[in-house]
């Protein structure tokens, strides 16, 4: 109930007037049309199930990890999907450290509702042993920079991370057939999650007294807006969730108009996510092949694209490094030490170490997440 004002960042009256009058002639402060979406950049970490989404200045990271846990009593044969949000105080002046604020809770709830209630992720396939052991999939969303419209960015990050997440395969064995064997990724190829459809959140803001509609509001537009509507829509035209938590009232026709716009946006965003994930999985498949030096040669020949060839060179370097596994570990630990002590120092060091170590340091960025949760590749089995 308290601490709300700390969560609110106020614009000056002049800035507010400026945004509103500019919008009256269909101009937005960043030069977009009212119904234009910002550019989305989706990147992936080296680890499976990590993504990084940039929506204009907004920057969100998503991590997906899995753990074997006991299921809920009322849902004995369903896996769990948990969503955690973290608003770093670094991301904006309005976030205070510690207890998650209302906006963090709201963001988590919207992403959660979109994914869970529309049954986007097949939770029944996450059951290992009914009533005893299921997979709990944990999505961590880290807000790195707040440039407005965190919800859409966080939702895309969650989807992208879910699509690239792999969990180790589990089989039942032992004398009574009740013992769970978790196969490490080297032994059996880890399995992707079954994602039926992609619920994409689209945020609309209503500005000014006459409720001028704007899609994908920036940070300053969010400070001015009178109302907001978030529609979570998939590419098939189904509505998965809607949130319009109070604010300026709008006629029903405006809501239907928003939903139509949202389903069009959702189609293009779904395409973007899918193509990014596809690019990642081909890269991942190529990386797999690099483990055997003879095959690696073949692929680098087969790679027709210049960009792809570059990648393979880097990959080959990686495999060389993996042969000197201990050495690599040393490099990594050195890097972490140096980056902890001094950021600039760490940068210089990594650039000195050339391309391969640059890849390493990039991977280091993604090794976040709580320590007792495991990504697919660093999986350990425990009870």
């Amino acid at each position, binding site marked *: *109930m*308290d601490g*709300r*004002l700390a969560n609110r960042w106020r614009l000056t009256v002049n800035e507010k007037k400026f945004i509103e009058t500019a919008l009256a002639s269909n101009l937005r402060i960043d030069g977009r049309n009212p119904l234009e979406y910002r550019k989305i950049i989706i990147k992936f970490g080296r680890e499976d199930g990590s993504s990084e989404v940039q929506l204009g200045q907004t920057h969100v990271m998503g991590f997906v990890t899995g753990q074997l846990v006991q299921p809920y009593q009322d849902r004995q044969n369903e896996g769990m999907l948990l969503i955690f949000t973290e608003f770093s105080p670094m991301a904006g002046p309005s976030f205070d450290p510690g207890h998650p604020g*209302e906006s963090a*809770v*709201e963001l*988590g*709830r919207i992403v959660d*509702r979109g994914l869970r*209630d*529309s*049954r986007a992720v097949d939770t029944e396939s996450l059951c290992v042993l009914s009533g005893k052991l299921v997979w709990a999939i944990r999505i961590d969303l880290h807000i790195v920079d707040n440039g407005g419209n965190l919800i859409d960015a966080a939702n895309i990050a969650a989807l992208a991370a879910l699509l690239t997440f792999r969990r180790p395969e589990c089989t039942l064995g032992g004398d009574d057939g009740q013992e769970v064997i978790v196969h490490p990724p080297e032994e059996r190829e880890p399995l992707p999650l079954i994602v039926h459809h992609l619920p994409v959140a689209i945020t609309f803001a209503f500005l000014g007294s006459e409720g001028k509609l704007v899609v994908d509001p920036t940070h300053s537009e969010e400070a001015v807006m009178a*109302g907001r*509507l978030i529609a979570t829509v*998939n590419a098939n*035209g*189904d*509505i*998965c*969730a*809607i*949130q*319009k*938590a*109070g*604010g*300026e*009232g*709008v*006629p*029903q026709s405006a*809501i*239907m108009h928003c*939903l*139509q716009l949202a*389903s069009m946006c959702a189609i293009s965003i779904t395409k973007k996510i899918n193509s990014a994930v596809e690019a990642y999985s081909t890269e991942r498949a190529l990386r797999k092949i690099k483990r055997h030096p003879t095959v690696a040669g073949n692929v680098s020949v087969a790679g027709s694209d210049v960009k792809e060839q570059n990648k393979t060179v880097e990959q080959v370097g990686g495999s060389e490094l993996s042969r000197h596994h201990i050495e690599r570990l040393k490099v990594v630990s050195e890097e972490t030490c140096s980056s902890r002590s001094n950021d600039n120092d760490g940068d210089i060091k990594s650039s000195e170490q050339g391309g391969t170590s640059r890849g390493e340091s990039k991977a280091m960025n993604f090794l976040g997440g709580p320590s007792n949760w495991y990504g697919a590749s660093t999986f350990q089995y425990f009870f």
Partner: protein
Amino acid sequence: MEFVNPEGLRLDGRRPLEMRQLRAQIGAVAKADGSAVFEMGNTKVIAAVYGPREVQNRSQQINDQALVRCEYSMANFSTGDRRRKPKGDRRSTEISLVIRQTMEACILTHLMPRSQIDIYVQVLQADGGTRSACINAATLALADAGIPMRDLVTSCSAGFLNSTPLLDLNYVEDSAGGPDVTVGILPKLDKVTLLQMDAKLPIDTFENVMQLAVEGCKAIANYIREVLLENTKQLEYRRGL
């Protein structure tokens, strides 16, 4: 599970487009500036409003409008399993936020700068549609407290089960996993201020369900207006006018 039987009756004997029985009572908390109890069938909610009063925490004071705060809680005995729930869990934080923003939109906050209005809502019995009931109770309590408002806000939910749109879902229907659309409207302005939905629904079906919920809101608005009118008459009578 069958939610509408072949005779066209729901689990609690209602027709698909029928609302639960409404009951409202103004002035349930003696010490509060305004209070109300609102019942929708077995869902029972109590709301109390304090204010406009001086801002307790000076750093939160807003110089051009009133500060509206809202706290939603569920009594431990409100649900079937009596479990002690941690205060301030995600769900109630979100509902508090939703109620606050909905009420903020209809209160004429610019008339009461540098003051604060507190809305406390508590669920006494939960049988689906607590969010709607809370908003209706809060509207009544605000009206009882004499706080200037643009319009009443009323809320109602609707769902879609067994390919039939259903008005005002109860707990069993709500937890069936089907879509649940909660709408809050400003009846006189005919504008939608609150809209929440979950689960999956095609866009044209959604329009029908939303329309149904809006009709429900309008019916509730009529009822609330009657209650307020009755209350005012009582007050008039007591003053001997």
